[in-house]
């Protein structure tokens, strides 16, 4: 089951600061939906536990998150992989940061995710809506991090 997501979001933070945030493991831990622990394996590569909880559905995954293709401060790729009892998930998204106004950055993203196991086999009807919802959660969490950073 493959899912595609893409879009853009304007964030109230300058590009350089946003860049630093986006690759900060502490921020990753707070923004990746369901992420409950991040442990550094090597530069830009972390081990992580994920507990996805979307309404009634919950699934735990053990996996990793990696940041690659870095072109500071404008581009990187975020890859998340996990495996758990209800299957596996693997997703990656390319992020592009464009300066917008003063203290404002346009973040474009385009990614896809693959799912396998029971979730893919019985949930195909709603997965794409759920994916959009999770992207929304990511940005909400990110905005909160930005506010906290500013505060």
């Amino acid at each position: 089951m493959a899912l595609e997501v893409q879009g853009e979001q304007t964030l109230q933070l300058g590009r350089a600061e946003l860049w630093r945030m986006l690759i900060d493991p502490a921020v990753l831990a707070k923004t990746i939906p369901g992420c409950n622990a991040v442990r550094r394996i090597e530069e830009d590569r972390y081990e992580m536990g994920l507990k996805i909880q979307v309404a009634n559905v919950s699934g735990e995954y053990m996996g990793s998150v990696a940041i690659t293709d870095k072109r500071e401060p404008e581009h990187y790729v975020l890859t998340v992989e996990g495996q758990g009892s209800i299957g596996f998930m693997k997703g990656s998204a390319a992020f592009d940061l464009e300066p917008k106004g003063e203290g404002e950055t346009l973040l474009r993203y385009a990614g896809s995710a693959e799912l396998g196991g029971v979730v893919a086999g019985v949930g195909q009807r709603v997965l794409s809506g759920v994916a959009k919802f999770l992207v929304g959660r990511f940005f909400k969490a990110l905005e909160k991090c930005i506010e906290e950073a500013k505060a």
Partner: protein
Amino acid sequence: MNFRYIGKKRRTKEDPRFVTGRGRFVADVALPGMKHVALVTSPHAAARIKAIRAEKALALQGVHYVLTGEELCAAVDPLLIGVDAPLVRRYPLANGVARYAGEWVAAVVADSRHLAEDAAERVEVDYEPIPYILDAEKSIEPGAPLVHPEHGSNVLYRRKFVWGPVEEDFARAAHRLSFRVRWGRSATVPIETFGVAAQWDPAQQLLDVWASIQMPKFPDQTARALRLPGNAVRVYFDVDVGGSFGVKRGIKHTVLVGYLAKKLGFPVRFIEDRLENMRGGDMHGPDRIFDLQVAFDADGTIRSMKIRALDDVGAYAGRSPLQLGKPVGAIVGPYRIGSVEYEPISVLTNKTAQEAVRGFGQSPTNYALESAVDRVARHLGMDRVAIRKKNFIGKDQFPYLIPSGTTYDSGDYHTVLDKALAAAEYASLVEMREAARKAGRLAGIGISTCLEPSGGNTAFEPLFNPKNETTTWMDSCLVRIDLSGAITGVMNTSSAGQGHETLVATVLGEILERDPDTIRVVHADSLTALPSNSPVASRMAIMLGGAAAGAAKRIKAALLAIAAHNLGVPETLLEYREGNVAVKGATGKSLGWDQLVEIAHRKFHRMPPGLEPGLQAKFVWEVPKGGALPTADGRIQMYPCFSLEAHVVLVEIDPATGQAKLVRYACGHDCGTMINPDIVHGLTYGGIAHGIGAALYEKFAYSDNGQLLSQSFMDYLIPSALEIPSITMVDHCTPSPLTEFGQKGSGEAGYLGAPAAIACAVNDALGPMGASIDELPMTPLAIWTRIQGGPT
């Protein structure tokens, strides 16, 4: 023919136990101390299994064992496959590599199924995903990832047969057409999943097996894989099977459970849950691309065909590639087509493996053939009824030899089609279609005339695998008359709803002239059974019916011999009536059933010399006209008997939504003599419903990353009573000259023609807008897409 019991309305022997909840299905078998299995399955389309860690699972109280492929594969032999591809090895559990999403990787044994599932979640498997291939056509291109690298290719089987002067016929024909149709991956999906329970008795060195099976040579294959002598496996054939229609094969399940029971020393049961069944039950059906070329004349005479059939069997081959073989025996359908080229190609992909489905590959082929006939008619502007009648084999042309070497036994195709048209009120159907069209709706009529080869033999095995010289495909029956004079028939296989107990009782009753309701029919176990090849291939009316008749005749012969001896007259002067034997004429000399039985059982001094005491007889029967190997050019007598079904259907499509509705459905059916009409009709209605599913609703769909998306009944859409219309059935009887009572098979009836007819109807509906659809199932989305002018 005038029968006493055959062909008459008669309640079946089986129904009372089922309507009162007293059936005994495998899930009802509870053995003392029995443990339960749940599976760990691969979520990947293809992956190397790097490590399996079971500690956390085994730490749960009540969890007994976690079996891995590594252990199992070292201890059992690979499961048999139909074609000559010894390196495409299959075991119950993946060994090092998992080749489709859902493949079994480990099995957990626990006190309850609940606990087994708890434990299965805790088995940790390290997978390394590897490249996979999902597209059948791409799988045979160079460089495609290989499902079984040892085999060296994804092609399991490929051969081009040429029967008759194909090129000459194509050159001579006035017209040629070529097209592609695709049969979607669906299956029979019985409401009962597969299940098996096994118990090992170390004192007797005997494995007892209860399973939901419909599988030839099941005990032998199980024993062989488990490296046991055949007489160390006892399969109970009295387990009720909750539907099969071909797929209940279960060798891998049984080898797994048998191994566990033997190793662990307690009874073990595995009942697939629906998710395991859909993904890893290895029960998907044909998934076939047909490329057809047809050569025909201006008057509609079809001269020749070239058929390429590419079948995606999934990641392993059981008997599935042979489903391309059975259609060889009816490759021209009911038509006088003089020559045929046939190129079956069976390929491997990273999908769930395919298993036998009702008709064993014939329904997809019938769909392709009927699509060809419709296209020829459309091309020539000919009426679709007329073109069929033009090409039908005439009723006086039987026995009729088709180019691929099979002789059809009998038939009257014109009459059956006429009866179906009359039952459908064809003229009013045309009016309804025209009225719907005038009102802006889409409506179409579909007609199909399809053969059901029946009787079953194993001829496709040597045809597809020269190393396999199996030509014997017998079935048998044992009849016993006990001291009280009661009759018991013993059949030697399990049943999945086809009414075999009624069949045997009716046949025994007919021959012995005794009331079938007084006759008991039991299922032997595999150690007491006579040889049987199970109720596959629409064969039991013919084969079990024939065997029962043969055994009953032997009983009758014994009774006559006893009577002749005791009455002191030659048998030729005797008359058998309702079990009593009397001297012909009004002599008054006779011996009654009870007296004859008593002599046989108790009065050896009154027995004729040379006759065994007791009163029992067995009969083992080989398929009529079976028993021969194919010729070098692949001509072979496939099944002996050929039933015809003619479907006439009116479909209406909502042009705004693409939803198709079956407005009228009629079926004309000729399967020779019907032994029990209710049973034949029931099988046929059910077959039609199954065909409606294949045509409009059902598909095992895969995502681009090899995930089965229709894994539950929320997405694999079996039609309900709200989708299946009321069906008008009309019978015709052209007896088979090859069988005891003129009966032919009907176990696959309905399914063999319904998809073809519905597809033709949908295309007739789309025709006025210049659209057509070439792929099953024809879902609302697919139909709407075509209405919009998009690709299928």
